């Protein structure tokens, strides 16, 4: 057939995926050096006494101390583990429940519209403001903390599932139905993958809401955990412990968002050719 010319003119299939190359690694190192140098410089100015404004080295010492501490209240590993367990529980429930309700919202139009405006209202409700409610109705325990995490993030998942599914190009559903697809199979094989790039953004946002709520709830409700470590630091005027906990919280947030979600999102976008415009 006469198709050769057309195949030759097809766009080339080589495109680069984003990778942590040498220059961006160098940029990160330079940024970190400037940051720590600035911190050290402010410390040397002695604007505050050293117990209120410790040097990077003092924070590092405290981190090592916390890592070695036999007391689980202070032990860095134990605190991080329990915080991550609460996060995993709350986040999983939020994503599962939010996706489920979001799907029901798409199916029942009037319920969806009403629920959507309700969710948007609840989404902007401060997560900490759920704490008194949670303490009385669930209790001052792990369940109470998970409750605060779920209630602060589940509505965001509902809204994003709802809008992701509603924004699928109708042609995909039309074409799939034309090929005999329907019901659960249509949902699983077409609607879910079609909405995935936008759904992953929603999941990312839900994680962010959950993470914010968790640390807040831990400060007020927990005896062990990264939030509790912050609170203990304040109680004993241990600024180096507060900053040590802040650093760990920052690192976890950074790792989950920038590394985990970013990688998944990037992979999906590259596969679908959404990453080809240089930013």
């Amino acid at each position, binding site marked *: 057939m006469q*198709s050769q*010319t*057309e195949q030759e003119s097809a766009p080339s299939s080589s495109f680069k995926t984003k990778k942590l190359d040498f220059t961006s690694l160098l940029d990160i190192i330079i940024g970190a050096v400037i940051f720590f140098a600035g911190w050290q410089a402010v410390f040397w100015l002695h604007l505050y006494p050293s117990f209120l404004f410790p040097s990077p080295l003092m924070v590092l010492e405290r981190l090592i101390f916390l890592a070695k501490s036999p007391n689980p209240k202070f032990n860095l590993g134990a605190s991080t583990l329990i915080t991550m367990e609460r996060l995993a529980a709350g986040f999983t429930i939020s994503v599962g429940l939010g996706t489920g309700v979001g799907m029901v919202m798409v199916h029942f139009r009037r319920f969806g519209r009403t629920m959507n405006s309700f969710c948007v209202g609840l989404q902007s409700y401060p997560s900490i403001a759920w704490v008194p409610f949670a303490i009385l109705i669930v209790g001052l325990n792990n369940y109470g903390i998970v409750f605060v995490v779920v209630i602060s993030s589940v509505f965001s998942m509902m809204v994003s599932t709802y809008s992701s599914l509603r924004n699928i190009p109708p042609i995909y559903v039309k*074409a799939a139905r034309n*090929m005999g697809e329907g019901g659960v199979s249509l949902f699983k094989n077409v609607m879910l993958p079609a909405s995935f790039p936008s759904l992953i953004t929603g999941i990312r946002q839900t994680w962010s809401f959950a993470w914010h709520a968790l640390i807040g709830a831990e400060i007020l409700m927990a005896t062990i955990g990264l939030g509790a470590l912050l609170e203990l630091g304040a109680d004993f005027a241990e600024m180096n412990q507060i900053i040590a906990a802040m650093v760990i919280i920052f690192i976890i947030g950074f790792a989950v968002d920038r590394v985990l979600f970013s990688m998944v999102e990037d992979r999906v976008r590259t*596969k679908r050719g959404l990453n080809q415009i240089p930013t």
Partner: protein
Amino acid sequence: MGEELTEERSNTIPIFPGTRLITNRILELRDLRKTHVRHNGNQKDDLLVLDDISFDVDEGEFVTIIGPSGCGKSTLLNIIAGMESYQGGDVVVSGHRVSTLGPDIVMIFQEDSLFPWLTVLENVAFGLRNKGMPKEERKKTAMKYIELVQLEQFAHSYMHQLSGGMKQRVAIARGLAMNPRILLMDEPFGALDYRTREILQGQIQEIHEKTKKTILFVTHDVREAVSLGDRVILLSHRPSKIKREYAIDLPRPRSAEDPQLHGLINEIQRQLKEEVKFAEPNGTGISA
């Protein structure tokens, strides 16, 4: 709908039993009427789109449908595919009235309807799962049709790595892999450039020769309609009626450059111009 597709369509109601014994007629439209509800401020009124459309299509025929834009050509295909309702008349496929969507009649759209999260191979094999085909066989069947449209070296590519013409060839392969009784094509080459369109016009004729599929092809391009169709059905402006039918008995592959077609092209173009004159200066926003 995924059950075994026997000789009798599972999703149809027999109304003219015995029709198939007499002819190899595959599609019959009888006095088809379609109205759209038009919202005019807070008033609602009915707009007649298709007015008593009747025609037959024989098995293996390549029929092109042409008409001025907004005349309801796409609506007609949607009705045959079971994707839109109609208000009067009958659509009969192999002696059975079309009642629901089924994989027996497959549509190829003008828009890009391929799934960007699947490879070419996975796209073409997509509909075969609903036919209860085992995995290996699905893959083999899909590959056969990918070879038919000459894209075997792109079988594992994703959609964004293909050009517009290649995408439409994948769509054709996906439609053919379903092994439908009727293949409906709704301006499939409308969004392509002139040169690619010409190549694909040649290819679709070759595919038709090889597979002997019944094809119903909607276009607004007179040259395309004439070079592809065994028969050209010309629709009038809304409310659409069948204005003329032209049978074309010339050997394939043909091209619009064929001098024997010039007279016909001019004649159809003249007829179309007449229809456009009837069109209201400000249309009602119903797409073709």
